[in-house]
């Protein structure tokens, strides 16, 4: 790891530890928790869409699998939701493998359309498989199980425990992205994004690399879904298998910067705060402002906010080096 990156990580973790003591406002803390959750989801989409260049419109299905797994395990089998989140991640990862093996036979826009169809299928299954999913009624958690940490009972009505959990999940998501960006697999994904035939020609098993990445992506999206179920305590097909969720993940990764480690966090900060802020002020039509923001970013910052910042930083450094040599 480079020194700058190490300093960045250390500063980030320190800020996470201090923040809940600095922010006393409950609504603000709620927004921060949402930012963390969306960072996890944006990172999930980013490993597949940003690194491997495989644009999925179906990540809501993976999110939904995570959410349903967590809530069903809790309500029907009594598995505590904090373990349920992990189970949700694993379930989404496992579920993504057959989806990948089928959809990765297609390339480009055909792949994207296939993932869209998978998400719609998942929603139809959830609506109609009432024995398992309660159909359109969904599930509601009325009381969360008691838990003691370091001798103190955890207060599930407060924001603090969810803040800590969301921060932890975010570190897992960004940490695994950082690992990926340095790994051989990460290098293979970039090759696949650049030219899939050329990647095969130099001996890269492109299907295997893409399926592995989709599994990682599914695991992260499943964690995000599990957290959603735990935090909002309510799951139904409209809430967790909505096409809007898939789109939101795409937007966050794009606005932040495709194929970067910190991009999803930056994207989540901007989009979640803008989304919540305009929802406050304009009851009707707040999505117009959201759309306007998206258009501005796509027009003027196609490499994303963090992507552009990194470019400027790199350019500044080479400029300084040239200046130093002269």
């Amino acid at each position, binding site marked *: 790891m480079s020194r700058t990156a190490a300093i960045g990580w250390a500063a980030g973790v320190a800020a996470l530890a201090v923040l809940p003591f600095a922010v006393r406002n409950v609504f603000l803390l709620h927004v921060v928790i949402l930012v963390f959750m969306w960072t996890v989801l944006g990172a999930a989409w980013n490993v597949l869409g940003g690194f491997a260049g495989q644009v999925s419109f179906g990540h809501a299905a993976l999110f939904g699998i995570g959410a349903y797994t967590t809530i069903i395990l809790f309500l029907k089998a009594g598995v505590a939701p904090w373990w349920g989140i992990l189970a949700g991640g694993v379930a989404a990862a496992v579920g993504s493998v057959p989806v990948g093996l089928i959809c990765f036979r297609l390339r480009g826009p055909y792949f994207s359309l296939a993932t869209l169809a998978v998400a719609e299928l998942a929603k139809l299954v959830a609506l109609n498989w009432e024995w398992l999913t309660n159909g359109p009624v969904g599930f509601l958690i009325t009381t969360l199980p008691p838990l003691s940490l370091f001798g103190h009972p955890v207060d599930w009505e407060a924001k603090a425990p969810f803040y800590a959990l969301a921060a932890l999940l975010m570190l897992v998501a960004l940490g695994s992205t950082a690992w990926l960006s340095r790994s051989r697999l990460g*290098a293979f994904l970039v090759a696949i994004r650049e030219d899939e035939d050329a990647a095969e020609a130099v001996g890269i098993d492109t299907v295997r690399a893409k399926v592995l990445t989709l599994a990682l992506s599914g695991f992260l999206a499943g964690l995000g879904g599990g957290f959603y179920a735990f935090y909002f305590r309510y799951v139904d097909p409209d809430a967790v298998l909505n096409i809007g969720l898939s789109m939101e993940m795409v937007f966050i990764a794009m606005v932040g910067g495709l194929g970067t480690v910190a991009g999803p966090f930056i994207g989540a900060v901007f989009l979640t705060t803008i989304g919540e802020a305009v929802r406050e002020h304009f009851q009707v039509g707040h999505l117009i402002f959201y759309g306007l923001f998206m258009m501005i970013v796509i027009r003027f910052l196609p490499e994303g906010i963090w992507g552009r910042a990194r470019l400027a930083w790199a350019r500044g450094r080479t400029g300084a080096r040239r200046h130093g040599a002269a």
Partner: protein
Amino acid sequence: MALLECEGLTRLFGGLRAVGSLSFEVGAGEIVGLIGPNGAGKTTVFNLITGFLRPSSGSIRLDGREIAGLKPHEVTRRGVARTFQIVKPFPGLSVRENVTLAAFLRHRSRGDAESEADGVLDRVGLAHRADARAGELTLMDQKRLEMAKALATAPRVLLLDEPMGGLNPSEVDVASAIVLKVRQAGVTVVLVEHVMKAIMRISDRVVVMHHGEKIAEGPPASAVRDPAVIAAYFGHRAA
């Protein structure tokens, strides 16, 4: 025994027989030219050998082991690398990164793969452009990069699809010298090429194709005098 053998290789596209019962052998250490008029099926043969297309029938053996029907990356792993007629670099990456990706096939660590890549870049004369973006190279340098990527997978057989297409005469000489150097390093070469000057000079043997079939085979000087070859290129009156 030949290193690479194709036997009864056939590929149909609907009603079109792009390659029909083609058989030829390539011995270890040879440079074999695969020539023929446009549309003869030469690139299709490369796509069949390297797994980008499945043969309709026939067999392809590397060192006696069947490789027909394997996926492209498996063929590369067995030791058959290729270049593309229309070059396929990873355009957004640097030249060194391009070649390092190929070197990952035989090296697990990034450091080893990078030093392997630097060695290969030196061999093809591209070391001075190692930090340039692959998409910004001149055509000659893109052809060098294409060859460097293939060589970095440590192939036993290298298939070159028109490595000299679009190059000027002095660049053709440079490219020919690189191919000879590659053979000297122990790599067997099969090349599809239209630049006859290069084919005549560097190949030990040529296989001439027309309408998907082999019409002649032998040393380049005698093959080009074969009446069937002259007829294929210039029409029957010329023969």
